[in-house]
Every structure is written in structure tokens, then in C-alpha cells.
């Protein structure tokens, strides 16, 4: 079964069409990249998949593991194994990372009708994962994203992904704001989750991430449509040539 099947998706934000007929199919083990200029609809696609209610689906279908995504609330989507790494992760004062991760993990386990994990086991697994991402020991006690640098926020998103082990990860510019070392760490984290059961959608501006996490396919989104799909080599071509030539062809 396909993990994600998007057919002729039309989405408006504030009554303005942003996505105008997107088709996208991801199989287990597949990693697809979506590239495109600013304002082409990349983040809207991510938001609509996660269930953000400011984007209205006006036509088309989205199926996740055969289920109608539009019939699922954001938390049900998360419980079912969909995950969005936010381009701009939200600060939540007064709520520690460990608290959020535990609530999220327990919500996920409830969805799967598994018992909650005991606190000690959860903590030790968490500390282990945090260390692998090079996060300081006090990290888990800090309030979610409060006072974090751009790069720290992105690593925090990745930590959440590693804890929740989603079947479909949508990573919206996970590479922005990262230096080379952090990018390598993040790429290792993404690759560690790569297996035949999971699919990932990488939204990015830069081919650098795609050198480290090599996708099966690269899609170019312009003006709310996928105008070109190619292999990983397409990312390099885009870096060399920009989007202008594609925009002209599809204007």
C-alpha cells in the first residue's frame, strides 16, 4: 500500500488558490524532495498534510496508508504516524521538552492501544537520543524552543521525530539555519529512520541536504503545481540553473 497518495490537490489560503492540482505518491522506503522558489506552495502542502486549519482543501484527495486524511484531526494524523517538522517551531514557555515528548509519546501509544511507557525507560531512551543529536544534558528540562537558536529548534524537531518514529515524516526546511556540522548530524538522524516501512517528504531550498539524505525523487513545485520530477541529480541542476527557466516554461 502507498504511504501517501495525493491526487489533484487544490488548496486555498484566505480564499487565494495556493496549490493548483498536486499529485504525489510515496511508497514505503521512499524519500521525495520538494524544491521550489519562495511562495510556490511548499509549506502550504506541509501544513495541509498535517491538518492546519487555515488552509482549505477545495478539491482533490489525500490518502495516508489508504485512510482519508481530510477525515482525520491533526492529533489523529499524528497518532496514525504522520509527523511534520515545522519550518518555524513554536515556542511554548513553561513546558519542558521532556514533558512534551512524554505527552506526545503517550498519546501515540494510546492511539496504538499500547500501554504508556514507564517514566524511567522513557527518560533513559530520551537522554540517549538527545546525546546522539549533540544536545546538552539540560536540554530536556528547557522549555520547548524558548530561547533556542534556529539550529537548536531544528534539532529539537528532529529529536521529536526520532522519539515518535513516524511512518510519514514531512520535514519543512529542516536544513535552514543549520551550519555544516549540524546539517551532518541532522542528516544522520534522518537516515537512521530510513527503512522500508517509512516514507519522507523533504521540503528544501538547498541541494546540500540532498547530498546527505539522497532522495529517490525530486519534485519542483512552482505556482502550486509540480512542474518537473526527476532523480537526485535534478537538485544539482537546480542549484546551477535556478528556477527561472522552469518558471518561464510553465508560466
Amino acid at each position, binding site marked *: 500500500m502507498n504511504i501517501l497518495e495525493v491526487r489533484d490537490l487544490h488548496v486555498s489560503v484566505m480564499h487565494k488558490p495556493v496549490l493548483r492540482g498536486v499529485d504525489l505518491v510515496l511508497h514505503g522506503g521512499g524519500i521525495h524532495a520538494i524544491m521550489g522558489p519562495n511562495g510556490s506552495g511548499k509549506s502550504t502542502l506541509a501544513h495541509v498534510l498535517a491538518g492546519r486549519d487555515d488552509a482549505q482543501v477545495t478539491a482533490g484527495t489525500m490518502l495516508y496508508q489508504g485512510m482519508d486524511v481530510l477525515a482525520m484531526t491533526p492529533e489523529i494524523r499524528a497518532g496514525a504516524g504522520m509527523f511534520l517538522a515545522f519550518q518555524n517551531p513554536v515556542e*511554548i514557555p513553561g513546558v519542558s521538552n521532556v514533558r512534551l515528548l512524554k505527552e506526545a509519546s503517550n498519546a501515540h501509544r494510546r492511539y496504538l492501544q499500547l500501554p504508556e511507557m514507564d517514566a524511567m525507560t522513557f527518560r533513559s531512551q530520551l537522554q540517549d537520543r538527545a546525546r546522539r543529536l549533540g544536545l546538552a544534558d539540560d536540554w530536556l528540562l528547557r522549555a520547548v524552543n524558548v530561547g533556542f537558536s534556529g539550529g537548536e529548534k531544528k534539532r529539537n524537531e528532529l529529536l521529536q521525530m526520532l522519539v515518535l518514529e513516524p511512518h510519514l515524516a514531512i520535514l519543512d526546511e529542516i536544513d535552514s539555519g543549520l551550519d555544516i556540522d549540524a546539517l551532518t548530524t541532522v542528516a544522520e538522524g534522518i537516515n537512521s529512520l530510513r527503512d522500508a516501512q517509512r516514507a519522507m517528504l523533504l521540503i528544501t531550498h538547498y541541494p546540500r541536504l540532498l547530498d546527505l539524505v539522497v532522495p529517490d525523487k525530486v519534485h519542483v513545485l512552482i505556482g502550486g503545481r509540480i512542474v518537473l520530477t526527476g532523480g537526485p541529480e535534478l537538485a544539482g541542476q537546480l542549484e546551477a540553473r535556478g528556477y527561472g527557466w522552469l518558471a518561464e516554461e510553465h508560466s
Partner: protein
Amino acid sequence: MNTAMNSHQAHFIAHAATLPGHDSALIHASRQAAMQRFMGMGFPTRKLERWKHTSTRVIAQTVYRHVNPGCVGLDPADLDPHLIARQGIHRLVFINGLFVNSLSDMSALPGGVQAGSLARVVNESPGVVAGCIETFPTGDDQGFSELNHALWPDGAFVHVSTGTRLTQPLHLLFITTASREPMITQPWNVLIFGSDTHALVVEHYVTLGHTTHHLTNPYTSLILDDRAHVHHLLLLGERLPANHVGTVQVTQKAGSHLGSHLFANGGERTRQEVHVTLAGAEAECALDGLFFASGRQHMDFQTSMHHACGHTRSRQLYKGILDEQSRGVFNGVIRVPPGVHHTQSRQTTANLLLSDTAEIDARPQLEIHSDAVQCSHGATVGSLDPDALFYLQSRGLDVNAARALLIHGFAEELLQRVAPAEVRGWVGRSLNPGEGVRDEDRPGIV
């Protein structure tokens, strides 16, 4: 003058000869003067600036029964839900404003600390409260405190002698029991901390059983001598029909430090005033407040920070969480008189409205008559951040859990300032801001 006021006066006339301190000219004069002032001014009305948001009409028209010893049929186990689970806690229990020795536990009090019934202490040595009487606030908006000064039947007396460290919290538990007719309880609490002392005192109001409308009108005098270091927790957790109108009056001498932590979630109508006078150089005061109102609850908090001496510092943070049709008020005055220099004061109030029908009036009031000061203030009102709600939902939390976690996060800043951890956890559970406050998740415990 109405029947209700007359009933207070009648009670005074009938009981003046038996109220605590009746043998003492000092106490008797203080009570008499207060009664006269009360009869002159009556209960405050909304025409008064500091009462404009809170109506006292119901209270002013109710004939209350004064003091009911009423611990008949009270099982010590009834207290359990309200006790702090920690070894070595010192505890004074008051039922309907009267000290109950059999429910109290002072067995572990260290030498140098006296704690018990104010009535008893005042009957033996009335002079110990003379300093507190001098600090009673005056003014035509002080009707409730005047009534307390006139009629207080008991209360807590705590005296920590110079140099003594009270390492365990002292829990002052005030319980109103079930009653069929409206009842008024008016403890006066006198807490005196000598030089170089350390203490944590928890002043805590609860209701047991189902009561009708009742009024709790406590007055607490706090005196911190030089370099005393005190944390005062005030927990207002009475049940819904309760009206609570309380006053805390603090006097701080040189180098003293007070952390005042107010937590309120109970009562139909709650009004709390906290007056602080920083009377010695390097005195420092932090006033914190967290209140959670829902239904038709009305909560009104008034602080006044009086920098009477140069080189003093104060900080205030009050946060309100208001749901349904509740109403909140925060009015904070910072006063620096002419000629007082090098003071620092900061006042912040932040409020979270959980419904469209909840309301908050938050107002800083600065009376700064000196140039050489640092003073800042800020007030915010907002609702739950939809971006944050979506973020949590996208992590699998349903809407209710996401809301609860955000509310908890909003409250956490103030809970974090409470130590030790057992007391912090206990306050969190008592207040239950947004439910599900689990101590194990708090920083510092992992």
C-alpha cells in the same frame, strides 16, 4: 446604617468583654477605635477607586453569625486532602477561625519559634502585637480590615526569634466547616520574624463540606526584622459559595527579603489586598500571584508597594487564567515618596482569557515622586496561541490536552518559584491549573 452593620455592632457590644485581650487597654482601645471607624465608613462601595470593580452589596446586606467552634463531628482524616505530604511539617489548624490544638502539630518546632493561638498569646501578653497595630492601614476603603480589627476572635501567632532558621514549612490551615446559615470568620494572623531568621509559612484557606454563603475576612500582619528571609504562601482555595476578603500587611526592615506567593482558585468572590512597606535599606520584596477563575467567579487583587526607604527593591508578577464568565481584577500601586532614592521596582501582570466572556481589568498605578528610581511595569492580556495549539496537536495531543498543557505552561513560571519540591507539587495539585500537573515532570526532579 442597615441591619447587617448593626448586627456586627451588636456582636461587638455583647462580646467586647470576652474577646481576646479584653483586659488590655491597648487591645480594647484598638478594637473600639476600629469598630467606630467601621461604623463610620461601612463596607466599601464601588464609588471608591480601589473597589470600583468589586461589589460588596451581598456581604453588606447579610447578617452573619460570628464564630462557630463547629469542629463537632470533624474527623482528623477530613483534613488529609489539604495537608502537605512531607515529613516534619509544622501545622496549626483553625476551624472557623479558632485555633484547634488537637488537630495541630507543633511537636517538631525548633527552639526559638513560638507558634499557636493569637487569642491565648494576647490574653497573656498583649504588648506583643503593639507593633502590628501601628501598621494597620487607614483609609475609607479599609472597612473590611476595620471589622477584623474590631472583632477578631483568634488567629495564628508565629514568632521566630533572632537568628533562628525554620527549616520545615509552617502550614497554617484555616478551615471553614459546613453551616446552614451565613457565617463570618475573621482570624488575625500575626507573623513576626526576628533578625537573621529564615522561614516558609503557608497560609491556606479551605472549606470542608457544603456550606451556604460565608465570609472569610482574615487580616495578616507580617513583620520582617533586619535580614529576615521569609517566603509566605497564601493559598485561597475555599469552595464556591465562599466570599473571601483578605488583607496582608507587610513591614520589612533593612536587608530583609520576602517572597510572597499567592495562589487562588476558590470562592465565589475573592478579594485580596497585599500591602508592603519597605522600611529599611536593602529590603527586597517579590510579590507573585497566580489565580484561576471560572464559572462566575470574581477575583480582585490589589497590591501596594511602598518604598519608604532608599536602596530598596521590589518585583511583582501576577498572572490570571480566566475561563467562562469569570472576572478578574489586578490593581498594583507602586509608591516612592519624595526624597527616597535608588529604588528599583518592577510590576508585571499577564492574563490568559480562555473564553470570550471572561474579563480582566489589569491596571498598574505608579505614584513616583522621586527622580532617582528605576521603575517598570507592563500588562498583557491574551488567549491561547493557535500556533502553539496546532503544534501540540500535530504531536498527537488532543485539543483538551493541548489546552491543558499550554495553561500549565503559563502557570509554571509562578509555581517554579515555590520550594521545596513537595510544597510546589502540592500547590500545583491544589490549584490544578489546566489539570495534570505532575511533579515528576518538573525541572530539577529528573
